[in-house]
């Protein structure tokens, strides 16, 4: 425990301390500020004065003191006649004697930060700060926005919580599945944001992906029986395992089939595959589990040629039934092409083309280009690569697609 790096320890304790405080105090925003102040105090004092015996209790005490002095200042500003004694009595009136398990508080916090009353950008920001224990500056770097912008997003989220009367409690059995789905989606968005905001070693890398994985691990520890939580953690591990192989030394994109599989993180693949292997078939399958199972099949193929496309196609079909969406259709088209030839795939791509989804159009062209090339229609493939390049908003992807088009001249 004492060997653990200070920042890791603080971030692990952050949601526990905030949870304990928010459980007994009504003003969540003030609690959150107080915990951030306590974390800052710890990161300054502990390296000098040594780590306290009970780190969690130390943080809770300091956060509590910060909170009460903030309340006192605020109260004094509003009604100067309020006596300190009365305030002190009120302070301790709500404090329960028994400490709940730290895990429960973290889960409650997650549900609160991912409340449907908040916009998705606010949910992401608040989750990273309140549950992840990241500073506003770190979160801002991760999303590549100025700190002031992120600070506003967080304070807006906190004032929405106050205004809409969101309470610090676990959702009822009835609403729980829906609420958990939002939590999973927020963690997934943090994970994908990490991918889109980082490119090679040149950019400062705030590891949003690692943070998403860490939070998913915590959630999995709290809800080990939930198949979708397990599925999401597995999906993240399996996707992130390929990270280093996704770009070459020059930062150019390398497609899955051409990746150096020895550069994959096989420990992470093994862990992800084991997680999904143990879950699949024991509970009702959900979208994250299916996607993780597909990622595991890719991860376990020794070479691109060894890929079990029949199994992958079957899984995409299940996914398409569970949660129909054009992206799944496109993936299904690729699997069909690998099994039955490019024309089978192109027929499926044609079906997706009518959806008019702007954010997907570059992917549709890219898949079409790839399948046309497989079919030997080079001019058509080249035109489709160019269209895809024009429509993508990712720089490495654009370069890759232009390169593919150039290769065919």
């Amino acid at each position, binding site marked *: 425990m004492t060997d653990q790096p200070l920042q890791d320890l603080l971030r692990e304790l952050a949601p526990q301390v905030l949870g304990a405080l928010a459980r007994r105090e009504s003003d969540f925003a003030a609690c959150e500020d107080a915990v951030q102040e306590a974390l800052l105090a710890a990161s300054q004092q502990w390296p000098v004065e040594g780590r306290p015996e009970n780190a969690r209790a130390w943080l809770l005490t300091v956060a509590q003191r910060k909170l009460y002095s903030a309340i006192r200042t605020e109260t004094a500003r509003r009604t100067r006649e309020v006596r300190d004694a009365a305030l002190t009595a009120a302070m301790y009136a709500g404090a329960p004697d028994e400490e709940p398990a730290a895990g429960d508080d973290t889960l409650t916090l997650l549900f609160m930060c991912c409340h449907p009353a908040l*916009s*998705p*950008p*606010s949910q992401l*920001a608040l989750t990273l700060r309140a549950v992840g224990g990241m500073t506003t500056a770190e979160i801002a770097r991760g*999303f*590549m*926005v*100025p700190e002031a*912008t*992120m*600070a*506003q*997003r*967080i*304070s*807006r989220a906190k004032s929405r919580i106050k205004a809409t009367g969101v309470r610090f409690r676990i959702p009822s059995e009835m609403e729980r599945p829906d609420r958990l789905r939002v939590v999973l989606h927020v963690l997934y968005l943090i*994970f*994908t944001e990490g*991918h*889109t*905001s*980082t*490119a090679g070693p040149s*950019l400062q890398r705030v590891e949003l992906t690692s943070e998403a994985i860490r939070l998913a691990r915590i959630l999995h520890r709290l809800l080990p029986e939930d198949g979708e939580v397990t599925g999401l953690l597995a999906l993240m591990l399996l*996707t992130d395992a390929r990270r280093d192989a*996704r*770009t070459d030394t020059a930062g150019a*994109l390398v497609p*899955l089939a051409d990746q150096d599989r020895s550069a994959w993180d096989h420990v992470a693949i093994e862990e992800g595959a084991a997680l999904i292997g143990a879950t699949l078939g024991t509970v009702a399958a959900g979208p994250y589990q299916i996607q993780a199972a597909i990622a595991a099949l890719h991860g376990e193929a020794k070479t691109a040629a060894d890929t079990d496309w029949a199994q992958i196609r079957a899984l995409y079909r299940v996914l398409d039934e569970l949660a129909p969406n054009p992206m799944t259709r496109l993936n299904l088209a690729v699997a069909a092409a690998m099994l039955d030839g490019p024309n089978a795939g192109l027929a499926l791509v044609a079906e997706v083309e009518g959806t008019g989804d*702007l*954010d997907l159009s570059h992917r549709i062209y890219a898949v079409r280009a790839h399948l046309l090339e497989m079919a030997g229609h080079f001019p058509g493939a080249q035109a489709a690569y160019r269209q895809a390049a024009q429509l993508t*908003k*990712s*720089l*490495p*992807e*654009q370069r890759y697609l232009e390169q593919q088009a150039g290769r065919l001249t």
Partner: protein
Amino acid sequence: MKYLVMLYDAPNIRENISPELIEQMQALIGELEASGELVSVEALADPAQTQTVRFDQQVPAVTDGPYAEVKEQMGGFILLDVESTQRAVDIASRWPGSVVSAIEVRPLMNPGADPQ
């Protein structure tokens, strides 16, 4: 997702801007700031103050004035970080219509790749 909102001045708006219009624009900016969607906002000086660096066979040559001699010049820009294209367009549509002839909403490229 980040978007550059390019505001093209309405003809002669700089001479005719009213305090009410300025207030309207400031209110919208204040709202975007509060919601955490505003990355930055800048007004540009008069187009007459533009210096254009042209490249003739990769050799730079500096001339006075904007590149294009058109009536519609960019008067300012807003950088937004919003949830969707629709949201960016909705924000642009709320700009006071009398100060602009048109607004272009253009997505930024991101430096990383999408996962998968």
